[in-house]
């Protein structure tokens, strides 16, 4: 087990290195850069900057250096915890990222938990009662859930929330807690707002997981050992839960790798529609304003979040399933 953990941890380094190169390339792509868009803004205000000011600005963002050196500096600064300065928000990128990363993480993780809590009982029910009315209803809901874009779901749920409860469901806090310091009441308020984005983000992956669990469990239930157990008079609940479910449940862990990127994407989209203070809206703002330092850091953090999450799920799977760690 230890050698497996070490090898996986070492494998993380080249992965993150490749990702950082991809992201650096992406943020270098647009025409123009921080300096040219700053100059455009100044020109719009009627200010003509001096040649010296332009030079200073270029030096500040390392734009006067060759590309390779720019990348090295960017990567080095990121590793040492200095992500630069956002000229759009006029604040250090560190502050902007840290105050939002926690919300992104909590929505994504809770959506993952929601996925499991919903998919497990429904998947088992649908498999055991195959072709029953309940199975048809659940399978249909899963099909629709898989096909509905998260932003559409967010719009519909926000409308329903307004219609049924008469409350505005956007944001993560009630107005009175928006800028308040952290307190017990604020946490409770956040949890009261968190469930809606959690359901919306998690619905697609819950449908996906439920379908896989149903298919796996159906395969398992037809195996001879189940027939034997039934012939020996094992009760119906124990018959299903004792072995078939435990085998069919493996994708719950192994599919985190597939689901996590989708959950992070969905979270970004839903946050944009619902106005949640997470990474997604900040990323869109930074991209529209060509604030590429900020955009690069945000993309990098989202990638790190996903990669580490997948690593954790792989380790968990190795712990649960001995076949993997002895491979």
């Amino acid at each position: 087990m230890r050698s497996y953990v070490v090898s996986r941890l070492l494998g993380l380094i080249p992965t993150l290195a490749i990702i950082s190169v991809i992201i650096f390339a992406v943020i270098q792509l647009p025409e123009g850069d921080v300096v040219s868009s700053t100059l455009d803004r100044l020109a719009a205000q009627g200010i003509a900057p001096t040649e010296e000011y332009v030079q200073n600005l270029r030096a500040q963002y390392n734009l006067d250096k060759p590309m390779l050196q720019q990348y090295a500096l960017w990567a080095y600064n990121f590793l040492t915890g200095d992500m630069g300065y956002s000229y759009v928000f006029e604040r250090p990128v560190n502050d902007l990222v840290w105050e939002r990363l926690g919300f992104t993480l909590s929505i994504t993780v809770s959506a993952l938990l929601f996925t499991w809590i919903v998919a497990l009982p429904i998947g088992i029910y649908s498999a055991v009662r195959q072709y029953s009315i309940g199975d048809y209803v659940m399978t249909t809901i899963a099909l629709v859930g898989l096909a509905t874009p998260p932003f559409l779901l967010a719009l519909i749920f926000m409308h329903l929330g307004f219609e049924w409860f008469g409350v505005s469901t956007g944001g993560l806090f009630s107005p009175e807690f928006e800028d308040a310091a952290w307190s017990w009441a604020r946490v409770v308020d956040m949890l009261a707002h968190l469930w809606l984005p959690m359901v919306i983000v998690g619905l697609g992956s819950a449908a996906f997981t439920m379908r896989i669990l149903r298919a796996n469990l159906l395969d398992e239930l037809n195996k001879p050992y189940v027939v034997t157990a039934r012939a020996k008079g094992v009760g119906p609940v124990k018959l299903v839960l004792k072995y078939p479910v435990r085998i069919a449940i493996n994708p719950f862990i192994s599919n985190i790798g597939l689901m996590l990127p989708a959950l992070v994407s969905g979270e970004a989209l839903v946050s944009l529609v619902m106005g949640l203070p997470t990474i997604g809206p900040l990323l869109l703002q930074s991209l529209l304003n060509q604030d590429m330092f900020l955009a690069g850091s945000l993309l990098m953090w989202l990638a790190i979040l996903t990669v580490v999450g997948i690593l954790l799920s792989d380790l968990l799977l190795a712990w649960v399933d001995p076949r993997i760690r002895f491979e």
Partner: protein
Amino acid sequence: MSEAAIDPVVAAAAGLGEDVVAISPRRLMWLRFRRHRLALVSGAFLIALYTLAAFCEFISPYGTVTRNDEAINAPPMSVHFFDAEGDFHLRPFVYAYHMEVDPETWIRIYTEDTDRKFPIRFFARGERYKMWSLFEIDRHLFTVDEDAYIHLFGTDPLGRDMFSRVFYGARVSLSIGLVGVVLTIVLGILLGGVAGYLGGLVDRAVNKVIEVLQCLPSLPLWMALSATLPVHWSPLLVYFGITIILSLFGWTSLARQVRGRFLALREEDFVMAARLMGANTPRVIHKHMLPSFSSHIIATATLAVPGMILGETALSFLGIGLRPPVVSWGVLMFQAQNPLVIELTPWQMLPGLFVVLTVMAFNLLGDGLRDAADPYSTAATQ
């Protein structure tokens, strides 16, 4: 794939009897596919939708920018056969809008004006348009007289016909899915095939790239990439730019499958035989290996289309994908960003309904194709 005819002598030797029927693999697949009712229905639905999208100029009574000042944010009209007096008319008709403004909220409220009937004329002359930008025609599938109007899906805040815009949008959204998937297939087969066939260092490199791309959240990267498309690009260039961006991250699962198949097939006797007979690498791949799993590629490609369509919709919805004057389902949804829209003008969410139906149909069709393509699957026989 050739006819897998069974030699009568062989059949007799194997004791299969006289009544053995030879079925080609393709026919076998069709027989298995036909058992999936939902997949069949989905396939028919998609064919119908793509046909409508291909002929959207003819189907739609109006163009995408034609405005009707009498109907701003007007609800969908219903088609009648019986008029207010209960008399039957063979030619269906719609009633004109009767508009009132709520004195408190200033919201326009539309009701049916039963005094003004607009009979629907089929294959009649209406607005002039250029079919496929080639020939100029003025015939429409259905339209109304010159001084009348018809809005089966209602209108948007500028008084433009939603029915026409939904079908013009279908052309863009649906074709992005197909074009993107073709690019995905090319990339996937090329990279997966090279990795699986050559093995070694190339295989490791391609595998690493696949692994990295698969664990990246796609939407944020799509957002970053489409934000880099220059603002001054023409709509056509933006269209292809978005398509390429969507397929840049979509090829990985297909490549992984192709690679796995290649690794397995490489060891097969028929590949060895072909190589011994002097066939070069491209010929072995093209003639002998690809046909044996082309059906899998089709199934996987079908399952990849929804991701493309959803991606385009999400990007355009955020305002960084396709932009007006191009009409796509995502662009149409861009107008419906506010939950108030559902409250006041729910018919503007219709493009969303089309997205859901299309994605669902592709998912079901793909499932059916995958089960049919796999000769060892049990799901098809259950």
